[in-house]
Each structure stands twice: as C-alpha cells, then as structure tokens.
C-alpha cells in the first residue's frame, strides 16, 4: 500500500530521463522551460495547497532570482555561486516580506503580496541604469557546472530535469516531515494548532521563505535558459499565470502544480502558433477545468485511472489517498 508514491516517483524519473529520445530540438527547449516553470509553480503550490497562503506576488521571487543571476553575472561568472545567490536573495526577500505579510490572511494576504510584487516590478522598471528598465537585459553569465560551458539543449534539459527532480523530492520529504505536517495542520485549523502550542506564524514564515527560495532558484535557472530577462518576470500577470497553473493542475497536491505548468506552457505554445487569440482558448479551458475538474488535472487523471484499473479495490484506494497526499481531492477546491 505504501509503495504507491515510490513507483510513482520511479515513473516520474524514467519519464524525465527518456523524454529527450522522443523530443525534437525545439521540444527539448520547451521541455526545459516546462521543468523550470514546474519548479516555480510547485513552490507556489506549496504555500497555496499546504499552508493556505494564496499569493498573487510569487513572481517577485522568481524575478528576484532571475535578476540576481543576471546582474551579479555581469561581474562574476560562476554558476554555483550565482544560483546560490539567487536562492539566498529571494529567500531573504521572502523572509522579510513574510515577516510583515504573514499577519494577514485570505484576501488581504493576496492583496499585500500583489502590492509587493508590483513594487519590485516598478523598481526593475524604473532603475534603467542597473536593470535596463523596460527593455530588459541580456544574460551574460554562461551556464557552467565545472565541465565547460553547457550550451547544448540536450545537456541543459538534463540539468533542468535534475533540478526539477531534486526540488520535487525535497518537497515530497518536506510535506511528510513534522514541519510540513504542522503547516498542513495550520491550514486545516489554525486556532486548534495555537491551542496545541504551535506558534503558527513562525511555521507559516518558514514555509513562505522556503517557497520563495525555490521560486528564486527557478528564476535563476530561467535567466540561463532564456538568456534575456525583462521586468515582466516580476509582473503580477506572471504571478497570476502561475496561480492559474496551480489551480488547473490541482491545489493541495505536489505534482499537480507541476502538471499544470506543463499543460499551460505546452498548450500556450501550440495554440499561439495557430492563433493570436490564444488567451481566449486558454481562458475557456481554464473555466472548463475549474467547473468540471474540481481538483484540477491531477484529479481528473486519478479519476480515470481509478475507473480503468482500480475498480475492484476502490475501498483500499480511499485509504491510500490520505497517506500519499498525491490526490487529496478534498483540498482541491479550496482556492
């Protein structure tokens, strides 16, 4: 019974490893983008689905990571240092902003994170001398893990695949740890957690900071991937997109947001090559999923899966769900 996440993880690894054999060169590039976005959206999914903190300013940390790599990268070309700096800078930003924001909740938290994101956006937009303003800035640093510059799409794909797998397993362990369980408990019932002796604010702050660090890591990778950054990376539109990816993929699950990211990026890519009015189609799909797919894509997938293969032992299955957290459809509609 407990093997389910284990083989799911194995399948995930195999898919990640085998994908390049099936993909064109363009597909590899798209794959890398999906994986980077998936890390970012998973970090947002963590605070929304497990801590109940719905943020509309998460791009701030992604953008902070991207700008850190780009700006420091002009002077210092060391990938390890730059990525670490991206994680640290966004982590510090998340910690300080979290210290102020965590007091609020619900719609107020959403608004204040939105304001914070737009503030960073305005700074990047106005400080032309440093950030290049609205024109953005090319990324000069080269991706080099100590074995020479990595510029082939295949190698970079594997780098992002490893980064994604590492982030995923880190989160997987996190949500079953005492800290992760406590965060989940706070989302479920904060007043009881306080009565049990938890200083709930500290726990929320820790998970918010961790989430910001992971978003910053994704942002750092993204600036290497895209070789060009602009203030749009900090804009609330981007935060909103990430929020949609979380909801489409499945709130309250780990893999759901990652699937949502893949779905969104790939679909956007294909639809936009047919029509300029792709946001309309994306919008319709989004509405359809929210209306009929309650728990998001991952919920639909697990429903179909259960229909096809698990009919006989459905009762056992119900018990699985609680333990794995993979398809906890119960928390699926809580945004």
């Amino acid at each position: 019974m407990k093997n389910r996440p284990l083989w799911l993880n194995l399948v995930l690894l195999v898919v990640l490893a085998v994908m390049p054999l099936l993909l064109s060169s363009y597909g590899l590039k798209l794959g890398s983008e999906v994986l980077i976005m998936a890390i970012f959206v998973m970090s947002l999914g963590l605070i929304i689905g497990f801590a109940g903190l719905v943020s509309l300013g998460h791009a701030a940390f992604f953008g902070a990571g991207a700008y850190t790599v780009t700006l420091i990268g002009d002077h210092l070309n060391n990938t390890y240092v730059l990525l670490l700096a991206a994680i640290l800078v966004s982590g510090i930003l998340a910690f300080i902003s979290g210290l102020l924001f965590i007091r609020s909740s619900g719609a107020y938290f959403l608004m204040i994170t939105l304001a914070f994101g737009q503030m960073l956006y305005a700074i990047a937009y106005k400080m032309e001398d440093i950030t290049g303003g609205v024109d953005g800035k090319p990324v000069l640093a080269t991706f080099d893990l100590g074995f020479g510059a990595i510029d082939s799409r295949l190698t970079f794909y594997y780098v992002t695949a490893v980064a994604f797998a590492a982030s995923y397993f880190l989160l997987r362990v996190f949500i079953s740890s005492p800290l992760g369980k406590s965060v989940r408990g706070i989302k479920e019932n904060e007043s009881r957690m306080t009565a049990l002796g938890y200083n709930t604010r500290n726990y929320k702050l820790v998970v918010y900071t961790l989430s910001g660090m992971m978003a910053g890591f994704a942002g750092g990778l993204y600036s290497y991937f895209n070789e060009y950054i602009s203030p749009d990376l900090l804009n609330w539109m981007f935060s909103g997109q990430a929020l949609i990816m979380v909801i489409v993929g499945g709130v309250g699950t780990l893999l759901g947001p990652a699937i949502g990211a893949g779905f969104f990026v790939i679909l956007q890519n294909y639809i936009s090559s047919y029509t300029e009015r792709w946001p309309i189609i994306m919008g319709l799909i989004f509405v359809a999923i929210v209306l009929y797919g309650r728990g998001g894509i991952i919920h639909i997938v697990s429903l179909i899966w259960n229909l096809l293969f698990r009919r006989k032992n459905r009762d056992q299955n119900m018990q699985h769900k609680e333990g794995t957290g993979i398809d906890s459809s119960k928390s699926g509609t809580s945004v």
Partner: protein
Amino acid sequence: MTLLKVEHLSKSFKALNVLKDVSLEVREGERHVVIGPNGAGKTTLFNCITGTLPINQGTVTVNNTQISGLPAYTAVGVGMSRTFQKNNLFGSLTVEENLHLAINACKPYRFNFFKPINKFTDVLEETEHLLKEWNLWDRRDRVVNELSYGEQRLLEVLLALASKPKILLLDEPTSGMSPAETIQTTKLIQSMPRSITLLVIEHDMEVVFSIADRITVLHHGEVFLSGAPEEIKGDERVKEIYFGGGTLKHA
C-alpha cells in the same frame, strides 16, 4: 500547592463587562468545576486564562509563571492545555494524524523538515498508547469527519492530553453526548491520574458532582460562590440563580 491562580481578572467586549474581578485558585491535583447559567462567562474565562482572548485587567499564573498577556501558544509550554466547547479538530485528517500533530507540538524536532513524521518512533508510541487507552485505536485510520460525534468529543480531549499537561481545561467535555457516552466519558475523566489537575466547565449536574472536589459558581461574570460540592449543593442562593428555585438532583 496552587497550580493555577487567577487574580482580579476582568474582561469586557466594548461596553459589555463579561468578567468582573474574577479570582480563582486551583490546587495541584484538584478537580475544580466551574458552573453557572448560560452567559455567565465560563467559556470567556477559559479563553482569558489560556490567552486566546486578551484580558483587560488582572493576572493569570500557572505554576508560578505569569502567562497573562502572552500569546495563546505559550500556555502549553507552562503545562496548560485546553479543549473546546465545540469540537475543534482537524476534520479531513485521520485520527492518527490528528494525534501526531498534537504530540509533535512539544517535541524539540518540531521544525524538522527532512525526515517523515512517521519515522519518529516516540510519536508513534505515544499515539498508540493514547489511542488504546481511550478506545480509539481501531479508529486510527479513519478521517475525523467520519467519526461519530461522541468519538470526536473524545478525540477533542485526547488532543489536549497529548502534550502531557499539568493542568487540563475541559470546556463542557460531555456536551451533546448521549447518556451512555456521558457515563463513559465521566469514567475516563475520573480515571485520569491526579498528576493532571482539572479545571472543568460542565452543565450536567450528575457529571459535576461525580468529579468535583471543588466548585466555583459564576454568575453575571462574577464569582458568586466557591466551595466544596456539599456547600454548593446545600446553598439556597445557588439553587435560586442556577436552577430557578428547583432542587438539585443527587449524583
């Protein structure tokens, strides 16, 4: 030795004075029951003692540590925990997970984020011990929302017990229970070791007189009378305010 000391506690919601100069002492090992008609301020008193609500005046001291003015989560640190009048549980988690959270609260590794909680053997052992003692062991995998009301009510107490408190505040532990469940719960409360001091709000007079060492009557936010059960039982004025002149049922 006095374990819990409430001195001159006052609490008002805007113009409404809910608690007026309430003083209360609970000795170690005592079973102290607070009674009073609806709206007397009993639950507010609990909220003020535990720090859930800020107080206007007065002090609360537990085990010689003053905790009034401190946030609610600090109460557990000085050995005081509470239950709620209305079930306040983690409804979509299992019974086991509920207890894991309650036990984890006081562990030094509560901030650990790289080792699954069910790999900490002391958490598992304490969970098993408590669930078996309270006859909920066969319910451990059930989601709390699927439990019967009485079982949820037991879990409510169990969560508060998990932090191994010196003093436990029970807010109407038997409210809404069937007669059979009330009897069972009363027995469980009676069987609690004297190392746990109890401060209980209760309406059911049979339960009150079968557990109380000492009773405090709260009326209109003031301590009307405090004394041994026999004194309270025999006091005409208490009958007047609480029972509208009727006679007390004998336990």
